[in-house]
């Protein structure tokens, strides 16, 4: 096929696509406002700092020392004692009703045990149904106990002193937003782009215009590539606004190169659009396409992208699977650039891999594009 014909057809088709998108003012508005709104909501709402976690106390010792320990724990911002109970059954009931995050249990003779053997035990029962906070909560408890211990042993001479200096790099205030905001950007961009692109070709199939298009010299690559262009422009526009909001409203800085971030964001948008186009080529009705986009993509985007769950605890096989999703690559690259201020050296692998996936998706779309009605 001649290059000139290809370019002509491509421009004709792209022009038509721009007509479509610019004439649907409402949808265009939604496409811009929706990601902004979501970003604002999640940027402020998602917070992994644990505060005022409901706690129950079963103190079978009830001696001054155990009461002191409880007071320390309650005084912290992490824990909030909602009640003292008298039996394990009561603890069970509270857990069963979903009222507790953890329970502290002291067996009889706590203080005596410390005075005699030097060690006293406090049992911690964590909410088994929500494991995501357990280790964090345990370490909070440990710290409080540690401080308590220090005060208990304050009169004992400590002959040696190691002075630790702990610095937090990139995120001195330990703001949750630093960790979450790149993730939210990735998820929202990906889902919106995939969703819109997934309707692109299916709509023509359902409305019948595809029938006429097929009986013409126009080739699948032209259709697919031309469909990507207007959404890509909208996506790029979205990226700019999203980054502005992140920096000025959510207070997540861009420590690194903004141009690089924008570039990666664009490639990422392209990959999400390509994913949507592939869905559009493979499905026959808008309904199927929408089900796949929303029910099929939302959960993987949240669970498998490194947004909440860390990637380094995954098995090697899972890690490969997870890195085949462009959103995982983007979130990791965005964190590197935005929070750590790193440059191309740190993200070139993600960039290349994203580009490869995009090309693969487009090629699959072209190959699977049906030249005929079935």
């Amino acid at each position, binding site marked *: 096929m001649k290059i000139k014909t290809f370019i002509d057809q491509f421009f004709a088709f792209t022009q038509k696509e721009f007509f479509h998108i610019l004439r649907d003012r409402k949808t265009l508005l939604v496409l811009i406002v929706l990601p902004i709104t979501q970003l604002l909501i999640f940027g402020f709402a*998602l*917070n992994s700092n644990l505060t005022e976690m409901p706690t129950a106390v079963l103190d079978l010792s009830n001696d001054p020392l155990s009461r002191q320990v409880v007071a320390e724990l309650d005084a912290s911002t992490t824990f909030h004692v909602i009640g003292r109970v008298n039996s394990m059954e009561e603890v069970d009931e509270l857990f069963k009703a979903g009222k507790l995050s953890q329970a502290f249990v002291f067996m009889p003779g706590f203080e005596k045990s410390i005075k005699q053997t030097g060690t006293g035990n406090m049992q911690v029962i964590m*909410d*088994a149904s*929500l494991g995501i906070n357990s280790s964090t909560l345990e370490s909070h408890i440990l710290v409080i106990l540690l401080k308590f211990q220090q005060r208990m042993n304050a009169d004992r001479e400590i002959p040696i*002193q190691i002075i630790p*200096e702990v610095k937090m790099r990139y995120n001195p205030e330990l703001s*949750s937003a630093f960790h979450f905001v790149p993730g939210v950007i990735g998820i929202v961009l990906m889902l919106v782009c995939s969703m819109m692109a997934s309707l692109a070709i299916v709509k023509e199939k359902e409305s019948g215009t595809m029938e006429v298009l097929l009986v013409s010299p126009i080739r699948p690559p032209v259709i697919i590539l031309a469909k990507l262009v207007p959404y890509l422009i909208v996506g790029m526009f979205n990226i700019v606004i999203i980054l502005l909001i992140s920096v000025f409203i959510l207070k997540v800085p861009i420590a690194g190169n903004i141009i690089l971030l924008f570039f990666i964001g664009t490639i990422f948008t392209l990959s999400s659009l390509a994913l949507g186009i592939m869905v559009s080529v493979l499905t026959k009705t808008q309904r199927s396409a929408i089900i796949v986009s929303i029910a099929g993509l939302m*959960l993987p985007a949240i*669970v498998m992208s490194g947004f909440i769950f860390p990637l380094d605890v995954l098995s090697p096989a899972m890690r490969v699977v997870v890195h085949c999703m462009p959103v995982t690559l983007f979130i990791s690259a965005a964190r590197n650039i935005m929070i750590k201020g790193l440059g191309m050296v740190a993200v070139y692998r993600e960039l290349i891999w994203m580009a490869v996936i995009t090309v693969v998706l487009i090629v699959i779309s072209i190959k699977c594009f049906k030249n005929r009605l079935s």
Partner: protein
Amino acid sequence: MRMLGFLLQKEFIQISRDKMILLLLFLITVILLFILPPAAKVKTSKIALSVVDHDRSTTSASFLRKLTSSNQFVIGAYVNSYDEGLAVMEENKTSGILEIPKGFEKNIMERTAAPILLEIDAVNGVTAGLSSFYFLQIMERYIWEYIDGFGFQPGFRLESQEEILARVEAEAQAEMMKRARAEAESQARMAREQSLMIARAEAEQAQMEAEASQQKMPESIETAVTRKVNEGMGAEAVAVPGFAMNTNVPDVDIPLIEKPAEANFEQVRMIVNNRYNPDGESSLYQIPSILAILVCLIGTVLSALNIVTEKENGTIEQMNVSPVKRSAFIFSKIIPFWVIGMVILTIGLIIVWLVYGIVPRGSYGSIYIVSFLFLVAMVGFGILISTACRNQQQAMLLCFFFLLIICLLCGMWTPIDSMPAWARVIADINPLRYYVQMMRLFFAYGSELRHVLPQIGMLCVFIVVFNGWAIWNFRKAK
């Protein structure tokens, strides 16, 4: 009532015609339940550190050993400078830099302040805080165990500066002597092997010469070799360094730090009681929650799209001018999705049982009752959305907007208690929040319905509000 029956028949026929959708739903459920749970792990990983040890002393080494034996930290890289360590951290190979300045051991010995620097990659504020806590904890324990286990025996007295120095030097000498002896031994071994080879070569040479001149060898090769080697043995003994000849200083072992703390030091120990998850695997119970979210997504999207498709096709106009009662029409739209949702739930529960072995501690009955109520609410929500949309694209965008909020603010990923007040309000009016919590409770604790009455009550409120509002919109449209 009969009318409802006919309408339902039509709906089910339509649905069964569209086999693609049913297949898709099945595939999505199965695939997601296979790939999501392995990724939803909450194990904290070991924190890899770039270690810059300027001191290179046995004390710094023992501190590092203590650090790594805690199972929280791992030495990711051993570098020579802070900048090198930073470079490794920027490559994401380590999550922190530990710098031990020169004179660490000396400071500890002399009872002066011994600084140590830990810099943590704090992109994830929570895990960074965790790392910091663990580090401090390990450090404290190291200090106590150093005091109690290292140099102070029962009935001790505080050593003087000179005694300490002498002891340290003796230890150093003993260490050096041990190294020298090991060195000498290995050298001797090498020499021995060497002479063995030479002897063998000579013997073979002699053999060949003997054969060539057709003489018999006076002795076998082996004997020749052994004889040669024994001859050479004494002459090639390795000279041991002079100072090591003084064998009065006993072999002092560097004390292992893992000695238990003695009395006098009081501590409160935290013991984790795995009462509700004996195998410690609490992330298992997230899997039914993932299924719950999936049911939510499917139920809402399907019901929203159904009515909108009819609007787009214009078939809804026909309904408006037919003698069909509005209530029958609406119910005929709603009921099929209750059924589909319950079927998806059942398939999911079967998979969860077969593949992960997760069975609820409670009864399946309560799970189904609660799931049904939830579906009624969410299908109503889907219908409500569809009353506001004119085509499928609008329905898709509106569904997505709400569903993402519903999904992310349901308490599964970040704690609701930590959200700002306005977000907590959103979470309070989020049906999924209650459903997911109930699923978790049913599976992990075997909670019964009486435990979750408040949540069930909220679901009922949602049922009335969503469905009522949707029906009211329908009436208005006429």
